[in-house]
């Protein structure tokens, strides 16, 4: 399944969450906090903590651990607060 991460084309097996796909690429963070620009990735992994937020197809605040990757997804780093748009 094809997708892009910050504009770079990627390929992954179906059935993965966005977080799993990003981790499989070797990434541990894909968000920067609004305060002090700290790096964030998966913390709880079960949809509770909202730390793994990422922008998917220009929708901000998507929990990477809860969204299954879909073919053609455009995934990019979330910089602080990007909602509302």
């Amino acid at each position: 399944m094809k997708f892009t991460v910050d504009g770079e084309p990627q390929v992954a097996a179906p059935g993965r969450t966005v977080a799993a796909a990003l981790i499989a690429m070797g990434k541990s963070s894909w968000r920067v906090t609004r305060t002090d620009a700290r790096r964030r990735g998966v913390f709880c992994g079960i949809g509770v903590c909202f730390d793994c937020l990422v922008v998917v197809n220009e929708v901000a605040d998507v929990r990477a651990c809860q969204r299954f990757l879909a073919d053609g997804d455009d995934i990019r780093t979330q910089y602080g607060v990007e909602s509302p748009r």
Partner: protein
Amino acid sequence: MSYPDVVVVGAGVIGAACAHDLACSGLRVVVVDRGPLASGTSAAGEGNILVSDKEPGPELDLALASLRRWPDLLAALDADVEWEPKGGLVVATTDAAAPPLRDFVAAQRTVGVDAVEVGDVADLEPHLTKDLALAVHYPQDAQVQPVLLTQALLAAAARHGAALRPGVTALGLDTVRGTVRGLRTSAGTLPCGAVLNACGPWAGELSAALGAPISVQPRRGMVLVTAQLPAGTVRHKVYDADYVGAVASGDGDLQTSAVVESTAAGTVLIGSSRQRIGFDETMRVEVLRALAVKALILFPMLATVSIMRTYGGFRPYAPDHLPIIGADPRVAGLWHATGHEGAGIGLAPVTGRLIAELMTGVGPHVDPSPFRVDRPGVAA
């Protein structure tokens, strides 16, 4: 071994404020709670400190007295409790709602509430709907993070010698000739001179276990929490004027009224609901849906914002919707401080001071008689 003068049951904001003022008055205090500290109603609200929603009367008197105390109290606590003197903005969204709000404001002004009609809300709340019949700014309204406040009060109490015992359940009183001699707990009997019931919505249950029942019931509320929004998106406590009617209502059915405010963390809290369903913690989607719909009337831009989570809790209310603060006339040494409904955070400072004054025999700084335990309908 020295026994405590007072055992405070309940480590929520009311118990914490009472423990703090009692300890500062020189009494030996132990705080017990069956759960962790600040884990009940105080952890399930929005941190409201409001004068705007109160009509002239005993509760507004308490709120104004509390308001006067916050500056000194915050200085004494010396902790970051996310205090925000942001002010409130109360709006009438229909022509029919405007005259009652105007009358309400006129009455409040006669007793010292600052309230100013606002012609153009754009400067105060740029994202608020312009489709309003009336908007009133209440600069005295404020907000605090209630768990941080409760923890800070408990920490300050501990600095004045109070002992904190989370995980200890109160079971009953030891009395001799109708006078408190100790509190029986899951950790054994704590000999003491007095017991203060500060169990919020569970104060009714405890009072029955202590042999002196008071009428306190839970009133369920739920809150939606949005994702973080840019600073300044929602600047005040913004709520629909119909909130005042929902608070005062004795109706048991679901009532919702839009109450919207941001937190220091950047999220926006969307309330409020009121339901009398006992201690039922079921997630009720129809309540959340009603909250969202009403919030969108005030802030249409919230339509594209993600909801991050929801939470709910139980407010403690007495039949006449007034707090219960004072000695129980049936058992010497038993005291109650509960029934603050949705106003406990704001009223905690005045409640703590009043309990300390009454227990130590100092002249009370506010008239305690409207809150006495033996008023009609409260002490069964």
